[in-house]
């Protein structure tokens, strides 16, 4: 924030100084702005795009972060710290009393309560519905609730501290109540692993808690019970958590964590540990959102690049229109640098106005972006999490966007003004074509080429990732410059373009798409821009092929040839302008095309994703599942998987969901299960095949050996996120696992019975069916006492309806809390979440399309201004009005077509690279309806924006147009 504010003040302050020192220039700039208000408004509208994109992205990121942090605070409520044993093990409730009695905590805590926190399943016996897998039983101490942690607010408006509930009465979170369709008074059965056998405990739904205060605790599907009732369900008199509230409300200013840790340590109870849970989760929430921030900023960079091309076109248009006037000023003695200053002073006014309006326009864009992200988050959680959206507009963000947008715009204005200020004064005064100019070869140019070549050679050999890619580009640029005169221009440009595109695509292929966002996005963005640039220069250099093609048509229709020759020649031989406009379209279309590929290849492949299974069963708290007799004949294959519910600390530098109280289902991966895995592996370590990844996670020695001697080395420390220093040793994992919430190669750290357990991801299973971690029995042994459960995958006989079967199973087994879901529904849910996520990109890129369409409108206007005389001559020698109009529209349509082609080619190539990296079993393809819809809309918009200028051009009176003075 500070550097950009400083740069803004420095630049605009200097300009103000110069404007005051040169009042003539300031007056001329002011008159130019006021003279044609319509044109000035058009320029401002064009220049505002960049700021709108930045503002939208930054506000989207701010709001996503604010929402994420808000939900974290909501989820913890008044609870700041937890005291637990590893693996959620239980301990005597006296320990909570002992902690509360510690005098050192009196001034820093205002509530210490014993509690229960246990994964369970819930069945509503009246509604015959059950939920499993994501249900938690929370036991709260009513006394502490009343004293510190607050009241539950019920859906009927009542408030309760749980002390007024009837025996067996519990509250449901409104998410769980929705899923069970539960009503107050329903009989409920909660299944969780119990410490001793006994008859089932039947409960009564005493109320449905709103997501406020303690009713929002952990934001999921929850049963909130008085502590005694929770202990009754688990048949224990122990607890497994002590919840501590720090002095200072929801966001305590002073951390009492150190004092609490010391107090817990003084108890001397083995394994008992304090966790700074709320603060850690808030920090993790902010960290998770940094990915979103990087992602949105990366997208806005693309739109800014497109916007920069638009700015160049706009400023060039102004310069062309005023060329005779500027030529006269030069003739009268205005130096070239003063001419640039004149343009920049005018541009500064435009850029400030554009930044102001763009910033305001970006606010609703940011709101839409963040709301869509919130929707995607909610859908990724399968609707289990009560994710609340908040819209955040910070003054500092707006100031940052304003400063950044205006400074970048002014930078482009300056560069363009420098270019357009180079003029032959006599030619400019008479508005004659600029004579050809000899390029001078100065020492600076030699130094730059030499520097680029040296950096390129060293960088390509010695560095990696972004620096290596940049070095390669510098090397290509240096070689291209040096070899320019040695080859015919068209051949030279084509070769340079091919080499550049090849290098850019190779750079993306080389980077791990699961690398952290800071590494991946810069490479991706520069690679995409480089590929677009490379393909654009190839297309523009070879536009004569289009001329040749139309020439072939012209053999039969020479009138057509005559009509198309001028526009095609303008395109082919004004490469810079054509390239800028096609580039705008190409950047945006490349992104849209790439996501059309993603949209296609992320479609669920039902047969492969779940290895032919049709229904998933989950039963938390039940170590086994026995199918009811009435469905057994319909089941072709039944795969039972033992599960354990891990709740506790989870550390991983790049994973969502990391935190102090993460819930991770662990699926026991036996050698038999690994040999016939229940899910497809989407991503894996390069060293392993898919079957080997499963076997390695099951502990098979030969598969483990195939992972290599470094197969257990963590690329970065899972806690600190730091890579080992040169020569330093890697953190080593104790086992390989298959997981769906972290990328292959990454390490995660969980809290085992005897300390931290570090695991490395060998493969990533299909998301959304059995979410969690597949690990060998030996790994599970590190987590003693985890609550047991079970899952099952059913492959049905041909012709059996999965949905009907799932209903029959639930109806028969709801009492045991068995949740049965057709796998197709689970995969569709994930796909919907993916599409929600992509819709953000789609939204931003469609904003980019607007830039492209505007750019074409500007190009059409430029064409009229610049070619006024030529149009007059063409009309004089026999071009009819419709031919002039058709020619200009053909030019716009062809420019768009090339942009679309380049964009589609780039998008398909990029999409294919990601497809190859993803190991997806879905055949490669493109979501044609979405991309063709966008392209169709573009062409319609192009016709609309160019129709007016083309019509105006065709109506130019030839006698007036051929006059050489304005």
């Amino acid at each position, binding site marked *: 924030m500070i550097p950009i504010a400083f740069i803004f003040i420095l630049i605009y302050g200097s300009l103000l100084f110069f404007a005051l020192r040169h009042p003539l220039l300031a007056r001329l700039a002011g008159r130019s702005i006021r003279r044609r208000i319509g044109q000035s408004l058009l320029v401002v509208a064009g220049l505002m795009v960049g700021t709108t994109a930045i503002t939208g992205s930054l506000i989207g990121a701010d709001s996503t972060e604010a929402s994420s942090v808000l939900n974290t605070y909501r989820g913890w409520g008044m609870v700041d710290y937890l005291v637990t044993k590893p693996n959620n093990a239980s301990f005597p409730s006296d320990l909570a009393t002992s902690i509360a009695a510690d005098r050192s905590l009196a001034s820093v805590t205002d509530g210490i309560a014993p509690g229960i926190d246990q994964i369970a399943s819930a069945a509503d016996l009246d509604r015959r519905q059950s939920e499993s897998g994501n249900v938690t039983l929370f036991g709260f101490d009513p006394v502490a609730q009343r004293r510190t942690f607050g009241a539950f607010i019920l859906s009927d408006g009542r408030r309760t501290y749980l002390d007024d509930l009837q025996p067996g009465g519990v509250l449901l979170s409104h998410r769980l109540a929705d899923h069970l369709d539960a009503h107050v008074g329903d009989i409920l059965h909660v299944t969780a692993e119990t410490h001793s056998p006994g008859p089932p405990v039947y409960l009564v739904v005493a109320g449905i808690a709103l997501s406020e205060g303690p009713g929002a605790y952990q934001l999921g599907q929850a049963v909130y019970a008085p502590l005694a009732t929770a202990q009754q369900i688990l048949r224990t008199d122990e607890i497994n958590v002590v919840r501590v509230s720090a002095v200072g409300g929801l966001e305590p200013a002073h951390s009492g964590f150190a004092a609490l840790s010391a107090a817990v340590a003084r108890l001397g109870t083995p394994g008992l540990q304090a966790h700074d849970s709320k603060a850690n989760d808030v920090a993790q929430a902010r960290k998770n959102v940094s990915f979103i921030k990087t992602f949105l900023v990366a997208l806005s960079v693309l739109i800014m690049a497109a916007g920069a091309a638009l700015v160049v076109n706009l400023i060039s248009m102004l310069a062309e229109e005023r060329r005779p006037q500027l030529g006269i000023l030069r003739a009268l003695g205005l130096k070239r640098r003063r001419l640039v200053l004149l343009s920049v002073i005018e541009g500064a006014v435009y850029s400030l106005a554009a930044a102001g309006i763009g910033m305001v326009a970006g606010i609703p864009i940011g709101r839409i972006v963040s709301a869509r992200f919130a929707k995607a988050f909610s859908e990724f959680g399968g609707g289990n999490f009560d994710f609340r959206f908040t819209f955040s507009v910070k003054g500092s963000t707006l100031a940052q966007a304003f400063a950044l947008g205006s400074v970048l715009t002014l930078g482009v204005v300056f560069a363009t003004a420098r270019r357009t200020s180079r003029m032959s004064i006599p030619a400019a005064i*008479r*508005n*004659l*074509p*600029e*004579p*050809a100019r000899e390029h001078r070869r100065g020492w600076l140019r030699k130094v730059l080429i030499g520097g680029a070549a040296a950096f390129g050679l060293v960088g390509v050999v010695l560095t990696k990732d972004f620096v290596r890619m940049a070095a390669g580009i510098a090397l290509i640029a240096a070689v291209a410059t040096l070899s320019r005169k040695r080859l015919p221009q068209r051949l030279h440009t084509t070769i340079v373009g091919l080499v550049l595109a090849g290098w850019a695509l190779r750079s993306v292929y080389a980077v791990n798409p699961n690398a952290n966002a800071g590494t991946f996005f810069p490479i991706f963005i520069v690679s995409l821009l480089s590929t677009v640039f490379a393909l654009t220069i190839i297309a523009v250099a070879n536009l004569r092929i289009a001329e040749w093609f139309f*020439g072939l048509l*012209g*053999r039969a229709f*020479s*009138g057509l*040839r*005559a009509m198309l*020759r*001028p526009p095609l*020649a*303008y395109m*082919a*031989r*004004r490469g810079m302008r054509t390239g800028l406009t096609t580039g705008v379209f190409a950047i945006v279309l490349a992104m849209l095309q790439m996501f059309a590929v993603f949209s296609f290849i992320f479609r669920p492949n039902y047969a492969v994703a779940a290895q032919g299974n049709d229904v998933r069963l989950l039963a938390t708290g039940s170590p086994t599942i026995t199918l009811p007799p009435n469905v057994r004949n319909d089941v072709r294959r039944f795969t039972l998987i033992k599960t354990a519910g891990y709740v506790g600390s989870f550390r991983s530098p790049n994973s969502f969901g990391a935190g102090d109280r993460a819930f991770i289902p662990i699926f026991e991966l036996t050698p038999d299960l690994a040999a016939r895995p229940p899910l497809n592996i989407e991503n894996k370590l390069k060293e392993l095949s898919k079957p080997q990844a499963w076997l390695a996670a099951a502990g098979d020695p030969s598969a483990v050996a195939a992972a290599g001697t470094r197969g257990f080395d963590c690329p970065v420390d899972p806690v600190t996120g730091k890579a080992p220093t040169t020569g330093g040793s890697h953190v080593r994992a104790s086992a390989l696992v298959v997981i769906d919430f972290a990328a292959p190669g990454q390490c995660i750290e969980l809290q085992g019975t005897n300390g931290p357990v570090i695991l490395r991801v060998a493969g990533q299973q299909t998301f959304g069916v059995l979410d969690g971690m597949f690990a060998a029995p030996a790994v599970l042994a590190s987590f003693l006492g985890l609550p047991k459960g079970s899952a099952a995958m059913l492959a049905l006989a041909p012709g059996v309806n999965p949905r009907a079967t799932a209903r029959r199973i639930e109806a028969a087994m709801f009492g045991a809390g068995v949740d049965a879901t057709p796998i197709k529904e689970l995969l569709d849910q994930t796909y919907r979440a993916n599409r929600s996520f992509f819709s953000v990109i789609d939204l931003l890129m469609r904003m980019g399309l607007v830039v492209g369409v505007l750019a074409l409108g500007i190009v059409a206007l430029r064409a009229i201004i610049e070619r006024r*005389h*030529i149009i*007059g*001559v*063409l*009309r*004089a*020698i*026999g*071009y*009819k*009005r419709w031919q002039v109009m058709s020619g200009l529209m053909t030019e716009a349509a062809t420019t768009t077509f090339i942009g679309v082609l380049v964009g589609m080619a780039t998008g398909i190539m990029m999409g294919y690279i990601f497809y190859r990296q993803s190991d997806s079993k879905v055949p490669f393809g493109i979501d044609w309806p979405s991309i063709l819809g966008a392209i169709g809309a573009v062409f319609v918009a192009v016709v609309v924006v160019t129709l007016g200028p083309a019509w105006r051009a065709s109506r130019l*009176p*030839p*006698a007036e147009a*051929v006059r*050489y003075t304005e």
Partner: protein
Amino acid sequence: MDQIVRAVGVRKVYHSGTEVEALRKVDLDVARGEIVAIVGPSGSGKTTLLNCLSGLESIDEGEILIDGTNLAEMSDNDRTSYRAQNMGFVFQAFNLLPVLTAVENVEIPLLLVGRPAKESRAKALETLALVGLEQRAAHTPDRLSGGEQQRVAVARALVHSPAVVWADEPTGNLDTESTQSVMDLFLKLNAGGQSIVMVTHNPALAAMTRRTIKMRDGRIESDAANA
């Protein structure tokens, strides 16, 4: 005598705020194969007359016959087609398409009237040779001198053998040497039977033609054969 251009009672009024009568009942005949210079001070109406005679501008009164065809009765579309078939133009600012080579510029009128591409190219090269620029056929205008550009423009005006060539200050942007070269070209073409009507400020150039028409305040002040 065979008239290629015949104007009778031509009146042209511009309505830009105040009404300006640019041509006041002008009568004029140009014989086939004649080269005529129209001279006069700025604002006298000479360019307006040329524009009206060539059909670039419509007239308010009178009639204009080109080779017997009344332009005033034609629609804009028909007038445009007629120009494409029967007229050639040379302007002061050369007005070549900067993105086309010399030969490509020259062949445009032929393509416009539907002549085959190969034939058009051959004819364009032939015409460039006629103006002495066959070696510069592949050059774009920015690689040509002003005089060369104007000779290319002359070639473009001639390539489809028009009934009449209209030239509006064709040497206005040229140095003395180029002016002479272009004028020699006009005279050579005229000697070959090409009708040319030229507007110029330069009395010396006007004197080289067969006939000079002097204009003042929208009227023909004098119309006399040159010695």
